[in-house]
C-alpha cells in the first residue's frame, strides 16, 4: 500500500528578552546553576508574576510577520503538573485564548516549487528549569536559571507531507524569528526546538491516522531523521496488522529511534484555568501599529521582490533570502555587479556558499566582500575574463590577494580578444593536427571540443571560448 505522512510541528522559540517573562531575573545563557533565579522563579510563597512587555512586543512581531491576527485580548492560563524543575507546580502558558491567531508561511521545496503552511496559533509561555541527573550521587539537581524564560510556542497546521517539508518549514520559521529579531535561533543552547506530530494514512484517504508526538528535537537533521524513523515505524506497525497508539515518544538522536514516553491514558490532566494572578492581556491597534513600524522587510516579501526585481526563480530567491544577512550581501553584490543579478545569484549560492560551508563560515564572515564579488561578476559580464578564469580569480580573492581587477592585472588573466592573435593560434593548431581536421571535416563534430580546448590551452584560458568557436568554424570552412 502507498502511505502518506501527515506532519505538524510545535516549535518553541525562546524570545530574546533581557529578563524573564514574569520576573526581572536575567535570561543570559550559561550562568552558574540557580544564580539567575529570583524569588518569583523559585516559586516562593506570596510572590507574583508580572508580564514582561518585551515578550508581548516580540510575540506581536511574529503575529504580524505571519499575517495573523494579534489577539486584542488573550489570557494566561495555568498548566498544572508536578515536576521538580517546575517550581510553582504549574506553568504559566496560554490555552484557550493565545496572543497570535491563525497565519501562514511559504516554504520553498528542492524541486523549485513553493507551498503554504498554515500556522494555527502561537502563544506565550514560560520555560521550566532543568533537572541535572549527573554529578549528584543518587540524587537529582535542579537548576532554575531557565525557569521563567519566555517562549513562543508556534503550532503549525498538519500541512506537511514529507520530512523534507518539515525541515523546510522549521528552517523557514528559524529564519523568520531571526529576521524579526525575536529569537537568537541557537539550537545548541535550546533556544529553538520542536516537537513533531506524525501520522500516516493510506494515500487518498481523507481522515488522519492516529498520531504520535515526537519530543525533544533540537536540530534540522534530527527532525528529518526522527520523522523518517517514525514513518517507517508506523508503516511497520500498520502493515503488521497492528494499530498506532496515540502517545508521546522521545527521539533519541544517539540511537536514531523514537521510544514511548507515555500513552494518552497516562497523559497528565493539566487542569488548565485562567491564571488569577494575571489580568487578560490587551493589545490595542495603536500598540500594534508601533510594532509594525519596527518590522523589517519580511522574508516572503523580500523573496517576491527578488523574483520580480532581479528575475530570480522562486527557489533561488528563497535561498538568498534565508537570512537577512545573506539577502543584504546579495543585494550589495548585485548592485556592484552591474546589470547581472542572475549571475551574481549563481555566484553567491554557488561558489561562495560552497566555500563558506566548507570553512564553516557565516556570510558575515566571508573573506570575499559583496563589493568584491560584484567586481568579479562585472569582469565576467564585460568579457574581460571567462567564467573559468573567474574561478581562479575568485579563489585568489578568497585567499586575500586583492579585488578582481588587481588579481586579473597582476596575474595577467585578461581575456585575449584580439582576433588576429587568436587566429594565429588557430592556424598553428590546425596545421599541427591534420588528422583530426580531416575527421572533423568528415563529420565527427565532437572534435570541435578538442580544437577549442587546444586553443584555450595554448592561450592559458585567456581566449574567449565563444570567439574561439566561431573563428575555428570559419577557418575550417575555408578548408
Amino acid at each position, binding site marked *: 500500500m502507498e502511505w502518506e505522512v501527515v506532519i505538524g510541528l510545535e516549535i518553541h522559540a525562546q524570545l530574546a528578552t533581557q529578563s524573564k517573562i514574569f520576573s526581572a531575573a536575567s535570561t543570559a545563557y550559561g550562568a552558574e546553576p540557580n544564580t539567575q533565579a529570583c*524569588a518569583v522563579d*523559585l*516559586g*516562593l*510563597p*506570596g*510572590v*507574583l*508574576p*508580572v*508580564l514582561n512587555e518585551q515578550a508581548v512586543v516580540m510575540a506581536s512581531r511574529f503575529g504580524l510577520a505571519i499575517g495573523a491576527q494579534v489577539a486584542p485580548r488573550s489570557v494566561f492560563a*495555568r498548566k*498544572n503538573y*508536578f515536576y*521538580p524543575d517546575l*517550581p*510553582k*507546580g*504549574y506553568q504559566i502558558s496560554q490555552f484557550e485564548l493565545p496572543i497570535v491567531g491563525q497565519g501562514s508561511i511559504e516554504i520553498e521545496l528542492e524541486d523549485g516549487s513553493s507551498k503554504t503552511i498554515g500556522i494555527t496559533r502561537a502563544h506565550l509561555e514560560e520555560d521550566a528549569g532543568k533537572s541535572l541527573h549527573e554529578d549528584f550521587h543518587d540524587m537529582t539537581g*535542579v537548576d532554575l536559571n531557565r525557569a521563567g524564560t519566555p517562549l513562543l510556542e508556534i503550532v503549525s497546521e498538519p500541512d506537511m507531507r514529507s520530512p523534507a517539508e518539515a525541515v523546510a518549514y522549521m528552517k523557514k520559521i528559524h529564519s523568520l524569528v531571526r529576521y524579526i529579531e525575536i529569537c537568537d535561533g541557537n539550537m545548541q543552547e535550546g533556544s529553538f526546538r520542536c516537537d513533531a506530530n506524525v501520522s500516516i494514512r493510506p494515500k487518498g484517504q481523507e481522515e488522519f491516522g492516529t498520531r504520535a508526538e515526537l519530543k525533544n528535537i533540537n536540530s534540522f537533521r534530527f527532525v528529518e531523521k526522527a520523522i523518517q524513523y517514525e514513518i517507517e515505524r508506523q508503516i511497520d506497525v500498520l502493515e503488521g496488522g497492528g494499530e498506532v497508539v496515540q502517545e508521546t515518544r522521545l527521539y533519541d538522536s544517539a540511537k536514531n529511534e523514537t521510544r514511548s514516553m507515555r500513552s494518552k491514558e497516562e497523559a497528565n*490532566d493539566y*487542569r*488548565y*484555568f485562567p491564571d*488569577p*494572578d*494575571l*489580568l487578560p492581556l490587551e493589545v490595542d491597534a495603536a500598540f500594534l501599529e508601533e510594532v509594525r513600524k519596527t518590522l523589517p522587510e519580511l522574508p516572503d516579501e523580500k523573496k517576491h521582490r527578488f523574483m520580480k526585481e532581479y528575475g530570480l526563480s522562486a527557489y533561488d530567491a528563497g535561498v538568498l533570502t534565508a537570512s537577512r544577512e545573506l539577502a543584504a550581501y546579495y543585494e550589495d553584490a548585485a548592485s556592484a555587479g552591474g546589470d547581472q543579478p542572475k549571475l551574481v545569484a549563481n555566484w553567491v549560492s554557488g561558489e561562495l556558499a560552497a566555500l563558506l560551508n566548507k570553512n564553516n563560515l557565516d556570510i558575515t564572515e566571508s573573506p570575499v566582500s559583496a563589493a568584491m564579488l560584484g567586481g568579479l561578476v562585472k569582469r565576467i559580464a564585460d568579457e574581460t575574463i571567462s567564467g573559468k578564469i573567474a574561478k581562479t580569480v575568485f579563489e585568489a580573492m578568497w585567499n586575500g590577494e586583492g579585488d578582481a581587477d588587481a588579481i586579473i592585472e597582476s596575474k595577467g588573466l585578461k581575456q585575449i580578444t584580439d582576433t588576429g592573435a587568436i587566429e594565429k593560434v588557430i592556424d598553428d593548431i590546425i596545421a599541427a593536427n591534420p588528422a583530426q581536421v580531416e575527421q572533423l571535416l568528415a563529420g565527427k563534430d565532437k572534435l570541435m571540443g578538442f580544437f577549442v580546448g587546444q586553443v584555450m590551452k595554448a592561450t592559458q584560458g585567456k581566449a574567449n571560448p565563444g570567439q574561439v568557436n566561431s573563428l575555428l568554424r570559419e577557418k575550417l570552412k575555408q578548408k
Partner: protein
Amino acid sequence: MHTKSLAQLAQGLQAGEFTSVELTHRYLERIDEFGPDLNCFITTTADLALQQAQAADARIAAGEAGPLTGIPLAHKDIFCTRGVRTSCGSRMLDNFIAPYESNVSEQLARAGMVMLGKTNMDEFAMGSSNETSYYGAVKNPWNLAAVPGGSSGGSAVAVAARLTPIATGTDTGGSIRQPAALCGITGIKPTYGRVSRYGMVAFASSLDQAGPMTQSAEDAALVLGAMAGFDQRDSTCVEQPVPDYMAGLEQDLKGLRIGLPKEYFSDGLDNEMARVIDDAIAVFRDLGAELVEISLPNTTLAVPTYYVVAPAECSSNLSRFDGVRYGYRCEDPQDLEDLYKRSRGEGFGDEVKRRIMIGTYALSAGYYDAYYLKAQQLRHLISDDFKQAFEQVDVIMGPTSPSVAFNIGEKSEDPVSMYLSDIYTIAVNLAGLPGMSVPAGFINELPAGLQIIGNYFDETRLLNVAHQYQQQTDWHRRIPEQFS
C-alpha cells in the same frame, strides 16, 4: 495605655508622654501575660520590635514622624516578613523564613510601625474558626471556650484583648470581617486590587485581599491609608490614587441611602441577631439615613460558587509546596512520588487537603465546564446583583455572620455548616467589593457584628459610615473584662 486609639497613641508619642520603646514593652508584656492562654500569636519578635521602636523614637525625636510612627502592630502570619518565620499556620511552612518582605508589612514598616509578632490563623487561611491551625485553636477572649472566627482569628483576638493596637488580616471569603464580628472589633476588607497582594501567601488569588483589624473605624482609616496603593509587583493591583480616608470620616449621613437586602433578613436569620442589626440600623435612621429594601436574588449561590472558585485556585496555588525547595519535607523519601505524597500528606492539615481535593476535581478534564466555568458564570450574576443594588443605594447593611461565636469543636466535624458561617461575607469577595464589620451589640455576652458593604473603591464612605455609627455607640470600646 493599651486602650488608647491610634490617634491618642500618636499624640502621646509626639508629646513625649511615653516613648515607642515603652509602648512596645507594654504590649510585649501583655502578650507574655495573655498570649499563651489565647494562643493568638505564632511568633513574637520582641528583639526586632524593640529595635524598630528605638528607630521610631529617633524619628520622633528628629521630628520626622508620621501618624503611625512608633505604634506597635501584629501581622497575620500570612504576610512574608524578611528574616522572620512565615508559617501561614501550617506545618508545611513551620520552618520557612521568608527572604523578602510583603508589600503590606513593608509599607507599614516604612510608616514607622513596630512589629510585635505574627498572629495565629487557620492553616493557609482556610477556615472560619481558627481551629485548622497547625499551632492549635485560638480562643475567643469573650469566652475562652468559643472560637474567635477565622481565618484571621489570631489578629482579631490580639486586637480584642488589646495585645496590640492594630493587626493586619486577609479576607478571601470573610476572614477579616467574620472574626472581627465574633471578637467585637472593627475590620475592613478593601476593594479587590486596593492593597497589593505581593508577599502575601496566596489562598485564592482572585479573592484574597488584605486589610486592617482595629479598635475603631478611625484607626482603620489611618492604617488602610498606609497599606493601600499601587504596587507594580501585583498585576491585579489597581493604579488609582489613595484618598485621605481620615478626611472623609466626619461627613454627616443625612440622605445616605442604606440598602437592606431582603435575602439577608429572611426567616433564616436568628431573632437575636435580627434585633442587634435592627438596633444598629435604627441608629443610622436617627442620623438621617434613608432605608431602602433591596434584593440580591443570587445570594444563596454565593457559598456554592465560592466553594468551587476558591478551592480551584488554592489547589493550584498550593502546588508549590512540594518538599523540593523549601518548607516541610518528609523523612527519607524513597523516590520523587514518595517525596511529593508524604511531604504534602504530612505537611498539610485536613481542611487544606479537603480543599485541594475539591479544587483539583473541579478543574479536572470533563468537570471543568460543569464546575469551574459554571462558578465563573454565577460569579458574574452575583456581581451584577450588587451592581444593580448600587444604582439605588450608597451602602448595603446586614449581619456579618449568621451567629455569634460558636464553641470550639462545635462545627469542626461538619464542614458544610462551617462554610455557611460565611454566607453574608462571601458574596462580597466574589464581587470584589469592599466590606466592613463593626461591633453592633452582644448576644449571650458574645459580640455581634454589622456588615457594611460599599461600592468599588468607596472605602472612604464605608469608613465614614462606620465612624459616624461609632460616634453614637460604644460597642467598639468594650473590652473583655479579663483583658481590660
